[in-house]
């Protein structure tokens, strides 16, 4: 049986805000909708930016991609601030448990020398790539158009800072908090020939002007290859070379990638299907960066001594993903 509690009912005079009524009719809106649609200023800007006088403060022309409605680039995860931090808090709790367990059992002790060396030389330097990804996503948040896509880019940017910090913690676990492994990893990043292609690529990505191009380069090309090579292939190699427990410390990155790919793919699919011109443009960017990033990663992959076919397999994964969004 059900118990019915009597409450006073007062009829509302409208279901939601007028901009949402115009878009979806007068019906109750979700919190995602209220927090997202039309929140960014559209018109009547008072002054031109001193730092970019040929553009308006909020300007659609900071990318060559053209959308009829920038709010069609919505986030299938429906992340607004509150839902975003609560989702990430759950992920970090799991990660915290994993890191605590790893440290409590001193699992670093069981690492083979090969595994330990390779972690410092190949995994910890990724913190610098993540730092670049942080900047590239914040770039899209600052210069992109419409809250739907710009808020999600900020969430991604903050995620990448978090991942850079997790990678740094892996370093600190390996060196007993002295920071020596972080220095060694940075030394590798700065000087070892295997990393120079990727470092040059990161520097290059920070000079790309079109924010949507940056998004394609970072969140599609670099991220897919990096995920496949470091968090799948290298993880397998670790398992086979006395480093199977490290998987606990990189679980966050795999979960994060699964979650974020849903959003990246949705945005790309929507933008690509908007028009033939968008498709052509994004295809051009993808084609250009795909080859260059592969070239940049090849020396690290060779140095990692993982499966010879790893790079090809990663490339296949990338192409499959691209095909799925219409590229």
């Amino acid at each position, binding site marked *: 049986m059900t118990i019915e509690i009597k409450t006073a009912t007062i009829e509302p005079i409208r279901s939601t805000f007028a901009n949402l009524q115009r878009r979806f009719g007068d019906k109750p809106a979700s919190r995602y909708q*209220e927090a997202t649609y039309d929140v960014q200023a559209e018109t009547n800007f*008072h002054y031109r930016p*001193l730092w970019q006088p040929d553009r308006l403060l909020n300007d659609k022309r900071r990318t060559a991609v053209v959308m009829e409605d920038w709010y069609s680039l919505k986030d299938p995860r429906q992340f607004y601030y509150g839902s975003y*931090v609560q989702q990430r808090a759950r992920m970090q709790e799991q990660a915290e448990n994993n890191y605590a367990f790893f440290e409590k059992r001193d699992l670093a002790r069981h690492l083979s020398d090969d595994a330990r060396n390779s972690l410092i030389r190949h995994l910890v330097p990724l913190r610098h790539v993540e730092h670049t990804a942080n900047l590239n996503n*914040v770039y899209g948040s600052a210069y992109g158009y419409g809250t739907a896509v710009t808020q999600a880019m900020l969430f991604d940017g903050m995620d990448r800072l*978090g991942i850079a910090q997790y990678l*740094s913690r892996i370093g600190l676990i390996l060196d007993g908090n002295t920071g020596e492994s972080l220095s060694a990893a940075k030394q590798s990043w700065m000087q070892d020939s295997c990393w120079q292609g990727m470092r040059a690529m990161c520097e290059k990505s920070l000079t790309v002007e079109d924010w949507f191009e940056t998004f394609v380069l970072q969140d599609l090309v670099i991220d897919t290859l990096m995920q496949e090579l470091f968090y799948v292939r290298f993880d397998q190699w670790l398992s086979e070379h006395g480093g199977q427990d490290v998987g606990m410390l990189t679980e966050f990155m795999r979960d994060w990638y699964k979650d974020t790919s849903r959003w990246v793919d949705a945005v790309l699919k929507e933008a690509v299907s908007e028009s033939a011109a968008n498709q052509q443009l994004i295809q051009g960017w993808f084609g250009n960066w795909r080859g260059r990033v592969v070239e940049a990663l090849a020396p690290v992959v060779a140095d990692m001594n993982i499966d010879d076919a790893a790079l090809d397999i990663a490339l296949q994964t990338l192409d499959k993903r691209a095909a799925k969004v219409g590229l």
Partner: protein
Amino acid sequence: MAAKKLNLKDKYKLLTRDLDWDFSYEDRKQAFPYEDFEGIKIHDWSKWEDPFRLTMDAYWKYQAEKEKKLYAIFDASQQHNGHLNVSDARYINAIKLFLTGISPLEYQAYQGFAHVGRQFGGVGARVACQMQSIDELRHVQTQVHAMSQYNKFFDGFHDWTHMHDRVWYLSVPKSFFDDARTGGPFEFLVAISFSFEYVLTNLVFVPFMSGAAHNGDMATVTFGFSAQSDEARHMTLGLEVIKFLLEQDEANVPIVQKWIDKWFWRGTRLLSIVGMMMDYMLPNKVMSWKEGWEVYFEEAGGALFKDLARYGIRMPKYAGVIEKEKEHVSHQAWWTFYTYGHAAGFHTWIPTDEELDWLGEKYPDTFDKYYRPRWELAKKLEAEGKRIYHNALPQLCNTCQIPLLFTDMDNPTEVSHCVTEYQGDKYHFCSDGCKDIFEDEPEKYVQAWLPAHQIFQGNCGGPDIPDILKDYYHFNLGADNLDIKGSPDEQRWKEWKKQG
């Protein structure tokens, strides 16, 4: 091997500060192009002291806990008709002003901090700005969710972003933030982090949130409490910014001083709407605007500027004028809104007799002498069925965009009006403070989108004012505007209270 214990500062440094590197393959200036043009000299970003050493995992955790509690209150408030618990229907107009005037600024803060959080050359400063950016996004979104409930039961909230981009008085807050965001990255930080967040934020935040607390607005006050720890972080950033800039190079001092002068003046002009809200719009008063100003600026700000004197920073220019203004601005602003109440997106009214007495007590030197007689006249006219509504479009100040409504502070019956010429055209200002700002950067301020000018130029539809209000501003005429007396808001309120 026993792991070395790390203190928070060292841990944060290892996890975050060393992520950046010296470029070898690209010109760093191309990646961070906006750092030089303002003339600010930064020699060593590593001297930046991280104002809050919060790693992302901790950030997610703390913020998620705060959000969970906050949304539980929103849900409860919606379930139990929380809007019925406010002191009076008049109170709701204060938060209409907040949603249409202030929440969009939170959004601009999110955008502005994302911009500088991408642009600064130092990783410590960048990360601090990025965190503030996402906090500001939180603020606008939680505010919208708090107000969502009120929008369902009251008029005037319904098209808040559309209105913010267009309505005449909302160009005051909009132009303020447009001004900050269009400035260089260092000016933005001095404007928003220091002048606004550090020096003046208490005068926005505390009055609105305490106003909510005193008037039974559970959703807004809970938001306020929840945002407090974010604001504390932002204030720390504001102070670090100023110290860092001043310590980096002596040549930065006069530039920073000029910005402090500008943004302090711009900020106090913006706050005149807060003053009017405190003195006139809250049925249950918290404190007078004048008292707020004395506590939060004169005492707290005075101590701060004493502290900054060792860098060669002095009190903001025109602080003396502002001291006199605290006696007048709230009265002059509410009178203007009252007399233009047909063109406002919220309701206006004549203060009750008890409120007139309260104002007389709080402003013993000015209220009875200058302002009470106006309200006595308004009461008389209203009783005769001739409520005052002015129809002429007001002359706007070219800088702050407030109508020329403020008086000369030494001569409170005379409207203050300054004029300057630039490239053969005349420009009008409410004050010397606003005129100075224009004269320092005329090429910027001639671009201002002045609502009255735009209406005259036919850029806002029309031709008649009601057409503009209805079609361009999206006001529901007869519901959103005019006096609270006889408004649908008031009628519904009485109806609900009868039922209760």
